[in-house]
């Protein structure tokens, strides 16, 4: 019975990893691709490590694999945040059907965190 649960978790994890990778190849835009890579990829790897925890079922090995799942779930959003910020700051081309861009009218929001700048000039420049 435990092996059946292990096989189901393992198969689900492998399929989620494959779906993440197909999305990585086929989605239209850097930020949309990041959506596929970080969420589905972390879910697939986490399911495979849950299968590992069910397969061995010893205290040390199960705890280590659960710690790996915890670490993956902790680091995936941080890495995604940093990559998304870098991608948006470097002005990657957004998808042509993107119709909400909250930072489009705020000038230089990337620079404000690191260096002190004068008042924003881009509103007057646009007019």
């Amino acid at each position, binding site marked *: 019975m435990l092996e059946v649960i292990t096989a189901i978790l393992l198969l689900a994890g492998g399929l989620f*990893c494959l779906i993440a990778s197909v999305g990585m*190849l086929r989605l239209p835009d850097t930020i949309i691709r990041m959506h596929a*890579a970080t969420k589905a990829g972390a879910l697939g790897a986490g399911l495979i490590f849950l299968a590992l925890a069910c397969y061995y079922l010893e205290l040390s090995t199960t705890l280590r694999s659960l710690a790996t799942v915890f670490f*993956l779930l902790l680091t995936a959003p941080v*890495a995604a945040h940093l990559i998304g910020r870098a991608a948006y700051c470097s002005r*990657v081309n957004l998808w042509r059907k993107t119709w909400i861009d909250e930072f489009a009218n705020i000038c230089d929001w990337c620079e404000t965190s690191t260096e002190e700048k004068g008042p924003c000039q881009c509103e007057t420049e646009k007019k």
Partner: protein
Amino acid sequence: MTAMESMLLKGVTEAVLIFLTLAILFAFIRLVIGPDPADRIVALDLISVLIVAYLGALSIYTGERAFLDVAIAYALIAFLGTVALARFRERLAKKSRNDETHGEG
């Protein structure tokens, strides 16, 4: 019954290893053709997560517990690498934008 179940687990593990190999191949195609450096960083991040998953599946396939420690260490190092690459890309974008504004003014 137990022999059948372990045969099922062996077949599923082989199928999952093939799936993960295909997934790493697809992510590698995006790593090669990605138009922006940010695309390549995302592809490298996905490849490292897939390699961690591959190590987990390989640990079930071979019955070797040491692959779990390898997976933990690899996940740590891959996270540091992703953070370093993202910071590098952001600093490059800021630098080029500062050059642009100084050139215009």
